[in-house]
């Protein structure tokens, strides 16, 4: 899991430009699946056939968005600084002082404009320094439309790992490990689709056409969620296992799906938690999958992340592995909803 995560976090893949991540995921996944392709929007869709002889086997769609939040350059100032907007959920307060990298490895540094008060911190009052003294020099390094990403290599604490790209390379890593685990199992009756969706860091988007095409019987989304970080009123705790989301933005877990997830966690003797939140940023691909075509029952497992959506997001490898185990437990047996 750590290796997979390490590989995935440093790949350049902001919303709408996921090609490089798609390529790496495809390479990682190919040995474990029967078919893998990229669709018209760039979603990676892989399928591992089930070992059931039933005429219409049960079909599960696992989903994790593979794009990450980034800073898109909107303007190059006469002094050679870059103005930007945040695409995705990165908190503006975690940006000042952050080192960033552009597509071709162009280095940059995020800085607050002069004289900005703490209470006024916003992405519109910051700029990226690329070491240029005027507009022309800056344009040689970066142009409007370029996306810079906070440097994302893993900070390894042992079990805990930190990186700005954990939303949602952590979810992607879990899916890759599930594929690895499933392939080596004798029994997995259901057909399992692995979808790595595009533009999910912003809104539930790419997952919709993917679900429309697959029309699965069950959708299971893996994403990150806010864990208690220094005194907030959040109840998710880092290291206490995956959270079964009962309620999120635009999402309420169907009771049958919630029971399926909980049963599997208990059966596999895993620590798990529940997440009940109304916060706006908790939109996950589930809202898109649920509503595609004639509808799909969908569940959400979230990985507790301290400092979620900041450049210091931190997850626990044990939580990631437990999530993978939970999913494998479900997939190794026939599923009844």
């Amino acid at each position, binding site marked *: 899991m750590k290796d997979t995560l390490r590989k995935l976090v440093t790949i350049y893949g902001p919303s*709408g430009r996921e090609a490089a991540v798609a390529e790496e995921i495809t390479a990682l996944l190919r040995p474990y699946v029967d078919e893998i392709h990229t669709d018209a929007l760039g979603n990676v869709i892989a399928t591992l056939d089930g070992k059931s002889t039933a005429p219409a086997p049960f079909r599960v769609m696992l989903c994790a968005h593979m794009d990450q939040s980034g800073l898109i350059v909107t303007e190059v100032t006469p002094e050679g600084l870059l103005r930007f907007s945040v695409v995705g959920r990165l908190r503006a307060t975690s940006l000042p002082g952050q080192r960033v990298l552009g597509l071709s490895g162009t280095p940059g540094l995020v800085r607050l404009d002069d004289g900005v008060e703490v209470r006024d911190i916003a992405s519109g009052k910051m700029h990226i320094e690329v070491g240029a003294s005027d507009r022309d020099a800056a344009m040689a390094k970066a142009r409007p439309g370029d996306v810079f990403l906070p440097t994302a290599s893993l900070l390894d604490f042992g079990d805990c790992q930190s990186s700005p790209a954990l939303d949602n390379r952590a979810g992607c890593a879990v899916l890759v490990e599930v594929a690895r685990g499933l392939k080596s199992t004798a029994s997995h009756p259901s057909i399992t689709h692995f979808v790595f969706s595009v533009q999910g860091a912003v809104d539930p988007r790419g997952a919709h*056409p993917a679900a429309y095409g697959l029309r699965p019987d069950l959708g299971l989304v893996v994403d990150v969620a806010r864990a208690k970080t220094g005194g907030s009123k959040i109840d998710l705790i880092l290291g206490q296992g995956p959270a079964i989301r009962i309620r999120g933005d635009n999402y309420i877990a169907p009771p049958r799906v919630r029971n399926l997830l909980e049963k599997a966690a208990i059966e596999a003797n895993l620590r798990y938690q529940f997440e009940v939140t109304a916060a706006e940023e908790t939109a996950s691909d589930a809202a*898109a999958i649920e509503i595609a075509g004639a509808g799909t029952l969908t569940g959400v497992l979230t990985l507790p992340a301290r400092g979620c959506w900041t450049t210091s997001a931190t997850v626990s490898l044990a939580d990631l592995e437990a999530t993978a185990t939970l999913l494998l437990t479900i997939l190794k047996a026939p599923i009844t909803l």
Partner: protein
Amino acid sequence: MLRPDTVALLSRLSEACGLAGDEGDVRAVLRETLEGQACEIYTDTIGNLICRKGNGPVRVMLDAHMDEVGLVVAGYHDSGLLRFKESGGLDPRVLPGRSVLVGRSKISGVIGTQAVHLLDRSERDKVIPAKELFIDIGARSRDEAASVTTLGDPVYFATRFERLSDTIVKGKAFDDRVGCVVVAHTLLEHDYPDLTLFGVFSVQEEVGLRGARVAAYHLAPHLALAIDGTSSADVPGVDPPATSSHLGQGPVISLLDGTIVMHQRMREQLVTLAERHGLPHQYRRLTTAGTDAGGIFLQRVGVPACTMSVPCRYIHCPASLASLDDLSDTIRLAHLFLESLDKGEFTL
């Protein structure tokens, strides 16, 4: 340079009236313009006007929306004044002191407000809330008003299209009649043998990208290019990037907005073509709001989509300004893009 009949078309479209859900006037002008021009023309269930040209293997949707922002008659006051609601994202500050046209028969009306002489000092500086405004058509009673208008009647700004100079024009609804001109012009002027070109004049964009969603579903194109009118705030007191785009600097290519991150390769192809042919072009600095591309790209199994716009000052206000050079350059760039698809130079 734009041909006179293209400017004439913009004039007709600008003065035509079409609110979200009530685009009939605009639809009629476009239908008349395109009839008999080697296109198959029809409307779909939600009111989109679809012009299909050609039978080639690559299905392309070229889209512009017919609806504009405005008001609708929502009720009556006993005195004969009309109550209204806003349709689309109108700036309420532009309402007082306006001339309007009400309903199909285009009855003249005005939106007045109290004489400034009678206001308190403190009231003179406040924005007048829309709830305190009415439309006056000169009716003296509720019954009279209700006899010549209907609830739901559209209300438009009585803005005449005018040419302010060789290149600058003024009119209402440039968002997105300029786009309609680009699409219509493309259908009239060009053939692309290897494309099936769907010119889609969509409905209800201003209230949620509704028509384009539906059209993309039933047309199932391979890709889509939406042409819109976008905000230019290159005016005093506004610094970049809030200016978003500039009049006279060419078609505005969107990077992303609140509904879609534009398809990277489509976007890059537009820029490549513009550079190769020496066409001015610019990026849209704003990353908010939405265009039809956002409604199109998630249909069925996904449709690569991108938006290109004509810069306009004061969109969503009664009188917008645009540059005919920008319009002409946008028309040209749209054609170059379709041509590169047709020739197989650009594939997805």
